[in-house]
C-alpha cells in the first residue's frame, strides 16, 4: 500500500539533521518553534530555518523534564523540557533561537523554563485570549510586528515583502496539498492511511518547505494515478473514527496503534498537531497585519476559552469535519494535565450527543501502564459503532 514518495520522505528525514547542521556551519540560523499561532512564513521569508520542536510518547523523557518543570504540567511540555535537558535530539541541538506562542500557557511556561535552565534565547509571541473581538486583531498585529523585528535582528536583515508574498504562496500550496491528501486518506479504496497522512504532516516540521511542497505534490500525483477521484463514503463493517482533543505529537503512537489494532479506522482529526492548522487560512494581504488576521481567522486552539458554545468556531468546524470525513464516532484524546482540552471534553460530548455522534474520552499520558485499559475502552467503542451502524455485524 505504501506510496513510493513515502519512502523518499523517510530517507530525506533521516538525512535532514546533518543538512541542518551543515547549513548552520555555513551561517544559517535555525528557529525551533512550538505552538499554534506562530506565522512560520515570516521565519522562512527571513532566510531562517524553521523547525517545529517537540515529540511525545517517551515516559523516560517526561521524568527528565519533570526535574525542571512541575509534574502538574502536561506530559508533552514535560517531554519538551526533557529534550532540552538531555540535549540528544538533533533538532534541539541545532536550534539557535526558540519561538513559542502564548496560546497554551503551559507552552509559555515551557519557554520560560528553557530560557531559565538551559540558557536558550527565546522569543514569545503574545496571543489574544479572545479571538473574536476587533481589539484582538490590533493586539495580535502588534505582537506579530514585534516578533518580526526580533527575528530580523537574528537574521541580520529586514523582511523583504516580495519574498514574504512568495513564501505565503508557497505555504498556501502546502496547506492546500495537505487538505487534498486528507480527502484521499478518508476515501474508499484509499492508498494512504490516516496514520501515514499524519506522519506526512510531521515530516513538514523538519524538511525544507520548498522540498516539502514538492514531495506533497508527488504524493498527490501518485494518489491521483492509483486512486483517481477520491470519494468519501462509509463502508459496511467500518468503524470510522474522528480524533479530537489534546496534541498527538510525533512519537506518540499509543492511541493510534490501539485504535487500529481493535479494528477502528481513523478518518480525520482536528488536532493542532494534525489537520486543523492548515484549514481556513486566508491571508488577506501581503503584510504582517494580513498574516496576523489570517492566523486569527483560523479555528482557534482549545486553550482559548469558549465564549459562546452556539457560535464557537471550534465546535462548528468539528461538526463539519465529522460530516466531511463521514466519521461515525469521536475519540477525544486528553493528556493528563492538559486542562484546556480535558475541561472541554464533557461539553463537546454533550453537543455531539445531540447530533447523534458518540464521543469517547481517553485520558492518558505517555506511560504504558494504561495500555490494556485503553484498549478495552476503544474496543468497546468500536463494537458500539459497528453495532450502531452495521446490523450485520451486531453482536
Amino acid at each position, binding site marked *: 500500500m505504501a506510496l513510493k514518495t513515502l519512502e523518499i520522505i523517510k530517507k530525506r528525514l533521516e538525512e535532514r539533521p546533518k543538512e541542518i547542521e551543515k547549513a548552520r556551519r555555513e551561517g544559517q540560523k535555525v528557529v525551533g518553534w512550538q505552538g499554534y499561532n506562530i506565522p512560520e512564513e515570516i521565519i522562512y521569508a527571513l532566510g531562517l530555518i524553521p523547525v517545529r520542536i517537540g515529540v511525545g510518547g517517551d515516559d523516560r523523557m517526561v521524568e527528565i523534564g519533570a526535574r525542571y518543570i512541575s509534574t502538574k504540567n502536561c506530559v508533552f511540555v514535560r517531554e519538551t523540557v526533557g529534550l532540552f535537558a538531555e540535549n540528544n535530539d538533533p533538532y534541539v541541538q541545532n536550534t539557535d533561537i526558540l519561538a513559542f506562542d502564548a496560546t497554551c500557557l503551559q507552552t509559555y511556561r515551557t519557554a520560560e523554563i528553557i530560557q531559565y535552565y538551559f540558557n536558550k534565547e527565546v522569543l514569545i509571541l503574545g496571543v489574544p485570549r479572545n479571538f473574536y473581538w476587533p481589539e484582538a486583531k490590533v493586539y495580535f498585529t502588534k505582537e506579530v510586528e514585534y516578533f518580526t523585528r526580533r527575528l530580523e535582528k537574528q537574521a541580520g536583515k529586514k523582511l523583504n515583502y516580495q519574498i514574504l508574498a512568495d513564501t505565503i504562496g508557497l505555504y498556501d500550496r502546502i496547506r492546500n496539498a495537505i487538505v487534498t491528501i486528507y480527502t484521499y486518506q478518508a476515501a474508499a479504496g484509499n492508498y494512504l492511511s490516516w496514520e501515514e497522512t499524519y506522519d506526512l504532516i510531521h515530516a513538514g516540521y523538519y524538511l525544507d518547505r520548498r522540498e516539502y511542497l514538492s514531495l506533497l505534490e508527488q504524493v498527490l500525483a501518485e494518489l491521483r494515478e492509483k486512486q483517481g477521484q477520491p470519494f468519501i463514503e462509509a463502508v459496511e463493517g467500518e468503524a470510522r473514527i474522528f480524533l479530537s482533543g489534546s496534541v498527538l505529537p510525533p512519537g506518540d503512537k499509543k492511541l493510534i496503534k490501539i485504535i487500529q489494532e481493535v479494528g477502528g479506522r481513523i478518518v480525520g482529526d482536528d488536532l493542532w498537531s494534525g489537520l486543523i492548522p492548515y484549514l481556513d487560512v486566508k491571508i488577506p494581504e501581503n503584510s504582517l497585519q494580513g498574516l496576523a488576521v489570517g492566523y486569527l481567522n483560523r479555528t482557534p486552539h482549545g486553550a482559548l476559552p469558549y465564549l459562546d458554545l452556539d457560535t464557537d468556531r471550534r465546535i462548528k468546524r468539528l461538526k463539519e469535519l465529522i460530516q466531511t470525513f463521514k466519521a461515525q464516532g469521536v475519540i477525544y484524546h486528553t493528556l493528563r494535565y492538559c486542562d484546556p482540552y480535558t475541561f472541554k471534553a*464533557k461539553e463537546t*460530548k454533550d453537543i455531539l450527543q445531540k447530533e447523534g455522534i*458518540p464521543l469517547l*474520552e481517553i*485520558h492518558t499520558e505517555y506511560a504504558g*501502564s*494504561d495500555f*490494556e*485499559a485503553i484498549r*478495552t*475502552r476503544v*474496543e*468497546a467503542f468500536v*463494537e*458500539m459503532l459497528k*453495532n*450502531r451502524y452495521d446490523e450485520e*455485524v*451486531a*453482536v
Partner: protein
Amino acid sequence: MANVSAFAGVDVGSLGTKTVILVDGEIAGYSILRTGINTEENGLHGLETALENAGLKREDLKYIVATGYGRISAPYADKTVTEITCHAKGAHYLHPQTRTIIDMGGQDCKAIRLDEDGNVTDFAMNDKCAAGTGRFLEVMANVFKVSLDELGPLSLRATEVLPVSSTCTVFAESETVSLLARGERPENIIIGIHHAIANRVGGMFSRVGIESDVFFSGGVAKNIGMRKALEDVLKVKIVEPKKDPQLVGAIGAAVIAQNSWKRGR
C-alpha cells in the same frame, strides 16, 4: 445428551474467571474460579468445570466467546468481545428493562448505558486507580482482618458514616489505619469506605447519565454494603439480580456466542 447446541461465555477477569453455558437460551451450567497466573489455562479450566456442571462435553459447544482482560489469551474462543458489551448483553438477558449498569470488577469499575435491545449507547471507566474495585476492597478487608464477604454486612451495622477522604488504595489504607488507631468503630469506617467508592462512581455517572432500571454487576455487586451505599449516594433503586451478579459478563458472552452462531459468524 444428544444433538445439544450449547454456547459458552468465558469471562477471564483479574480476580475471577467466570464461565456460563447456555442451552436453548437457558443457563445450563456455570463456574466461578479464582484467576491464576496462566490466563489461557484459567479460561480452559473454567470452561471444563462449567461443562461438567452442565453435564455436557466440549464437542457439544457450538460457539465460545471470551471476554474480560484475559480475552487476549483465549485461542479456544471463536470470538472475543469486550466486557463492556458483554455486561450490557448479560444484564439485558437477566433484566430486559435495564438501562444503566454499574459494573465493579476486580481491577476496574464501569458505568454503562444501554438501549432496549441491550446495545451499549455510552460508557465510562474509572481512570487508572484501583478505587471502586474488588482489589481495593480486598486490601481494606485485610486491614480489618476480615474476609471480603464480611465487609458488606459489617458496614450495615454502622452507627454513622465516617468520611474517608481518599479513595487511592494506598492512602485509604493508611487513613483507615489512622482512624482505627484513633479508636473509631470499624463498622463506621467500613461504611465510610463504601460511601467514598459510591461517590467516586457518581463521578462516572455525571459523564454518562443514569436512567432506571439500574443493574449492579461484577464481583463487588455481591457486597450488600456496597449496594446500599450506591443506592444512598446515587439516589437510585438497584434491581435484584436473578443470578449471581458476578456471572453477568459471562452470561452476556454466552448470549453473544449464541447470536453469533445463529448468524453464522
